């Protein structure tokens, strides 16, 4: 039983990271139908920021610095991607463009950091373990779970309770109508794109001590984030949270129970959701399934 507790905690930590990654992807897709295939590359930029700054461990201050640097890099990348995709009207072209950016960024990272697997140490102050129900568990992962909870509450308050959140939800539902109210939706879009990319890059730093950094990680993370968005429903904060928690659990508990089928289980879960609820578990209201 205690083994499953550890798996469930691992799943929660993974779910927290996936929520941070998938949120931006989901909101941007909901707002402008742009599937940002460079989202995984933005995550990887964050992971390599961690490699550059805190690879061998170090103080908490350096780690926080890495988080801030990754957030800044992510925001700049996201803003740039928003500007690029806005100038191009067709969805397929936008997808190709972001794919091109993803490949370029991944190649540049590979040139700069090499192709080996980098591991990243958790900050010394939180690198230890605690005993949870008789099992030792890394403090750092508990902090990642805490981060996920704080992020979920903060995003909920921002999106569901603030004026800016109303504008974001309305833009997801009917962007031309928001423009007709005198709101520059282009700026809303750049802001959400930038903030979402910043979160993905921050997740890259935070996931560093768990997943490390290596070429190809961007594609794995992008795929997981896409599954989260499909399961949760496009353009929905609650959907992204639920999807991330489900995938985190399916992955971690699946790996503990039936390790040989673990990766298959994620897509089985997605197929099941698509069969039963094609729009996802908690899609944004007013976003009909377009056939």
């Amino acid at each position: 039983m205690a083994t499953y507790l550890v798996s469930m905690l691992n799943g929660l930590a993974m779910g927290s990271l996936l929520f941070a990654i998938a949120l931006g992807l989901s909101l941007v897709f909901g707002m402008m139908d742009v599937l940002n295939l460079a989202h995984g590359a933005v995550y990887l930029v964050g992971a390599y920021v961690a490699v550059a700054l805190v690879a061998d461990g170090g103080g908490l201050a350096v780690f926080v610095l890495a988080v801030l640097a990754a957030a800044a890099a992510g925001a700049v990348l996201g803003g740039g991607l928003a500007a690029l995709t806005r100038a191009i009207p067709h969805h397929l072209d936008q997808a190709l463009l972001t794919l091109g950016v993803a490949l370029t960024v991944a190649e540049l990272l590979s040139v700069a950091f090499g192709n080996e697997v980098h591991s990243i140490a958790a900050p010394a102050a939180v690198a230890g373990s605690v005993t949870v129900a008789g099992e030792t568990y890394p403090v750092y992962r508990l902090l990642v779970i805490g981060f996920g909870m704080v992020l979920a509450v903060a995003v909920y308050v921002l999106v569901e309770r603030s004026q800016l959140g109303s504008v974001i939800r309305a833009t997801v539902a009917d962007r031309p109508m928001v423009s007709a109210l005198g709101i520059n939706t282009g700026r809303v879009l750049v802001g959400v794109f930038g903030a979402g990319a910043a979160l993905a890059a921050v997740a890259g730093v935070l996931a560093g001590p768990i997943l490390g950094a290596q070429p190809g990680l961007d594609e794995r993370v992008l795929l997981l984030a896409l599954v989260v968005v499909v399961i949760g429903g496009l353009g929905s904060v609650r959907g992204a949270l639920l999807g991330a928690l489900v995938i985190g659990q399916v992955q971690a508990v699946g790996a503990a129970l039936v390790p040989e089928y673990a990766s298959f289980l994620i897509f089985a879960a997605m197929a099941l959701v698509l069969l039963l609820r094609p729009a996802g578990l908690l899609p944004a209201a007013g976003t009909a399934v377009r056939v």
Partner: protein
Amino acid sequence: MTDLLTVRGLRGGYAGTTVLDGVDFTVPAGTLVALLGRNGAGKTTFVHAVMGMLKPYAGSIRIGGDELAGAPAHIVARNGVAIVPQGRRVFAPLTVEENLRIAARRPAGAQAPNAWTATRIYELMPRLAERRTHRGDQLSGGEQQMLAIGRALLQNPRLLLLDEPSDGLAPTVVDQVAELLETLRGEGITAVLVEQDLHLAFRLADEVAVMQKGRIVHRGTTADFRRDRGRAHTLLGVG
């Protein structure tokens, strides 16, 4: 009276097709002009072009002297134009209160004592006050129409574009919407009313314009238009 809206030679459409084929149209300040015409005549396209939701191919759209043809919708809105769109398009995931709050805009220029506020909207439409915590997709069609009108008013526009406010509503609800619009007319709003329901259009409009194949083919007072049943029949296919 001076024209608040002056449209000259407006051409536009979707993806290269021509829907608006040289529209000339004016709305004097303080006047409610009904824009009539059969389905597909280009009325909604015209309204979208004026609002900046559709970029015209050519022509001029002046609002209070400012040239706004081709300007994006948010700039047109900030110049004092608001729309009650066809199908209402209230924001489904937002509550009534949120729908109104994101639309609120102070009137341009000097302070206006009669500026629309959420409080005034709720006084005018008590039903919305009762439903203020309900989401847009939990409202009835009539309530959504009230909300769409309230949302537009809260922008304190100089020019209001009403695109088929009676569409899809039960007759008793159409009456309520008509009473509301009559109240607004009494306050001297300037508006374009696109409407299939001729009774509603005649009840509200000072003047009538008829659009056919993307052009204005008739313009006159409502009284004059109602007198000539033959013309109404020829233009609209109704008696």
